[in-house]
């Protein structure tokens, strides 16, 4: 196979705020192959959601602006397309699923019309055909009694069912890439497992790529093939999922893994938190953003920004420390 489906290079997105210019996404580069699930993990303010929105140019401008970089999708740079060009891609070849299924659905339109809309817009199908396709899609998303639910409104659905509708909409035009931004954070745990299992199964089946934005390292472990860890707007480590959990190389990744509570293993082992507070993006230190919370930080870490460099095959980290003991 040739080039990967999606190649992001040096993506930088800045926002103008009351407290000055803020770099929310700073020189982010990664790739996604077809059939692959890539997880972007990070805590609030890490830049994971802004990265996702930047890919489809959904950043509100102003105050935001994609300053530089390339988003190469099937060989074309999405950042060079005109408005009509990017609109033709959104919801067609690249679909997005958001966190809040209630606010992403139009409360005044029936479920059928909303799921049929992308088919109408991108395929130009007449309503009757589009609604028939919508029924198929709702069935694939395992919505019971899909035919009769076409005329229902979003408020008649539970949170989990609404997220199934969002998945059906995302799949409408057989996208090559699905970007899911915290798709189950608002749902109960048992429903979260159902929705993510469904999403994973459907993307594997259609060989599309899935970019999963999440703060949950458990979700990443269960569903991701490759992981990108972000902190303070930058990628600090990336590796195949098993490799990352077995050999976390960046102090932040290590810290995160030690602070996650688990349902297995020894419960008497106390959690090891990462001391200090998350970074303030409007006042990032000149060096590594994690240096103030890092016990391996040296003088160099405080003055100079580490580059993302390979430590093993497909495993990169942005850290000056060679060995963490």
């Amino acid at each position: 196979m040739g080039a990967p489906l999606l190649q992001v290079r040096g993506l930088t997105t800045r926002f103008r705020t009351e407290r000055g210019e803020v770099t929310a996404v700073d020189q982010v580069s990664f790739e996604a192959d077809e059939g692959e699930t890539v997880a972007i993990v990070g805590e609030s303010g890490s830049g994971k959601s802004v990265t996702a929105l930047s890919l489809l140019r959904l950043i509100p401008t102003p105050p935001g602006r994609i300053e530089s970089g390339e988003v190469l999708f099937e060989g074309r740079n999405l950042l060079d397309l005109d408005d009509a060009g990017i609109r033709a891609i959104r919801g067609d070849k690249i679909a997005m699923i958001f966190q809040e299924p209630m606010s992403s659905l139009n409360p005044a339109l029936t479920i059928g019309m909303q799921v049929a809309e992308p088919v109408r817009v991108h395929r130009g199908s007449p309503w009757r055909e589009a609604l028939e396709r919508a029924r198929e899609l709702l069935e694939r998303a395992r919505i019971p009694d899909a035919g009769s639910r076409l005329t229902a409104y979003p408020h008649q659905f539970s949170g989990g069912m609404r997220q199934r509708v969002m998945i059906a909409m995302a799949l409408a035009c057989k996208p090559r890439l699905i970007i899911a931004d915290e798709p189950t954070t608002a749902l109960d745990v048992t429903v979260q497992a159902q929705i993510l299992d469904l999403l994973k199964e459907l993307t594997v089946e259609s060989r599309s790529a899935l970019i999963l934005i999440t703060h949950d390292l458990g979700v990443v472990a269960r569903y991701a093939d490759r992981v990108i860890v972000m902190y303070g707007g930058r990628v600090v480590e990336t590796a195949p999922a098993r490799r990352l959990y077995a050999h976390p190389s960046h102090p932040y990744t290590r810290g995160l893994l030690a602070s996650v509570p688990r349902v297995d293993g020894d419960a008497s082992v106390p959690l090891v938190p990462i001391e200090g507070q998350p970074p303030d993006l409007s006042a990032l230190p000149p060096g590594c953003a994690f240096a103030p919370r890092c016990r391996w930080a040296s003088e160099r870490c405080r003055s100079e920004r580490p580059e993302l460099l390979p430590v093993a095959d497909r495993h990169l980290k942005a850290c000056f420390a060679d060995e963490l003991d």
Partner: protein
Amino acid sequence: MNSTESTRAAAGADDTLLSVENLSVHFPVTSGVVMRKQVGSVKAVDGVSFTLARGETLGLVGESGCGKSTTGLAVIRMLQPTGGRIVFEGEDIAGHDANRMRRLRRRMQMVYQDPYGSLNPRMRVRDIVGEPLVIHGLDTDRDAYRARVAALLAMVGLLPDMAERYPHEFSGGQRQRIGIARALALEPSLIVCDEPVSALDVSIQAQVVNLFVELQKRMGLSYIFIAHDLAVVRHVSDRIAVMYLGRIVEIATRDDLYRNPLHPYTQALMSAVPVADPEVEARRVRMVVTGEVPSALNPPSGCRFHPRCPHATDVCKRVDPVLAGQGGVRAVACHLHPAERG
């Protein structure tokens, strides 16, 4: 089963701080605007019983609508229970009026989920943390009052000079510390923590979880720790009660529950929580349930979990299982696990 544990937890033992018996909280459902009439009731909490020892933490776990928060609020009488007994420090407080409760409020406090909504943005941290002292008339000596606020801030890992600042100047984790300092101000014996770390980032969550554990050791506090996340409660709780649609379906010590969950709902909840290790996840046998939690307005007949339960039999549809002892302090409400005999 550890025999000291079972005697300790037995109701009426000396160090029992709280004993809740058959607690119920029903909310009326009305219809009509002019001629309002009650057409039904939501049984948010429906016959819940448990005990809590001094210095112990009981985790209350379940999904939305299971009644865990309502139970917490009713126990400290921020909601009027419909029925049942709440025996706190030897006194049944279920029917106490506001005046009699005011005296007891010093003994029972609450920490909320939302670190942004639970602090008044126009008050300085000093006034937020000190407000309980003011309300209970303990602020007569200005110097002592200031020293007390400074000590409370130090206790939760904040600096004394932060007292002059406003909530917006703090991160989510620091705000939650302020909320904890406020809850500690009156030296309570019981703190009800309602999803106190759910809104926090993972690295900060662990800081706050450890703070709860440390404060408990130092001050002998008892917690009712409410959470939807089985992984978080595991690190703070001595015992855990799993709730589903207004009922406790299983209650057990921490290690019993996680090593060997008996109720199918507990098993499902446990499997739904992913473990942060791809190797473990790949090997794990998962129990997946279908559907979502049904409406509490019309709970299913028999066992409330039966429509989602892969092991449901005919008897589960008809007969409501009772929470029956499995020896020691463990109890399960499931027809698959009838009570031990003898």
